[in-house]
């Protein structure tokens, strides 16, 4: 789905990257633990997170994520938005929580990213 549809479905505000809303995403990763995001083995995914730090945007940048969707009505500080703009990472923000946001996107066809497997625990 296009980022524009992601914004519509989750009723998200586009904080930056309005010109990139035609970008396609078919996978998503929901995490506040940025260490987990760093173990995603795919690119061009939507990062759904409650983190509004500069580090969250930098992780998205290094991982070649398509965009960052911030949940639960949080709003990053101006320098973070400015950094995302410069880095070409669209930032979206929704009032909805993580669970609902991920559920809505999943029901519209977004699928999970794969992670690097860390142990044999739990199959």
């Amino acid at each position: 789905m296009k980022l524009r549809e992601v914004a519509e479905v989750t009723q998200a505000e586009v904080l930056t990257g309005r010109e990139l809303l035609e970008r396609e995403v078919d996978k998503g990763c929901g995490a506040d633990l940025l260490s987990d995001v760093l173990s995603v083995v795919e690119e061009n995914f939507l990062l759904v997170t409650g983190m509004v730090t500069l580090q969250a945007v930098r992780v998205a940048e290094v991982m070649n994520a398509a965009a960052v969707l911030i949940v639960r009505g949080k709003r990053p500080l101006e320098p973070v938005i400015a950094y995302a703009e410069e880095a070409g990472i669209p930032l979206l923000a929704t009032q909805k929580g993580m669970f609902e946001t991920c559920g809505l996107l999943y029901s519209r066809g977004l699928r999970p990213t794969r992670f690097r497997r860390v142990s044999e625990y739990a199959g």
Partner: protein
Amino acid sequence: MGAVSTQIRRILRELGVEPEVVRRVGIICFEGETNIAIFTKGGRITLMVWDDRVELFFADNGPGIEDLELVRRPGYSTAPDWARELGFGAGMGIPNMEKNADTFVLRSRPGKGTAIRATVWRKGNERQGSSAGPGA
């Protein structure tokens, strides 16, 4: 955290390094600089770009690592709360560096510091640890 790896990512892209290599080096660097930021008062990260490989060197005069086997275990961490609140320090850093590198050498002396060399090959599939299965 992440300032060095994003900068290195840009340099590698400008040099025309293969996207997959850029990504792996970016992840290794992010994990490495995060460790330096969390555990030490500062360190040095050196990037070397060759025709056939990219190398990252991390060196610090921090507290060193007491148990080298333990830090390679996913989930083991001695990170302080502030690092965890930022979403790091989950005990995945060293395992993730190791998995993204083709060769990974870590030397540490408690009380003296830590040095890491990570290499990512640019040509062919020379990944260490990825067993060549059928058809590979």
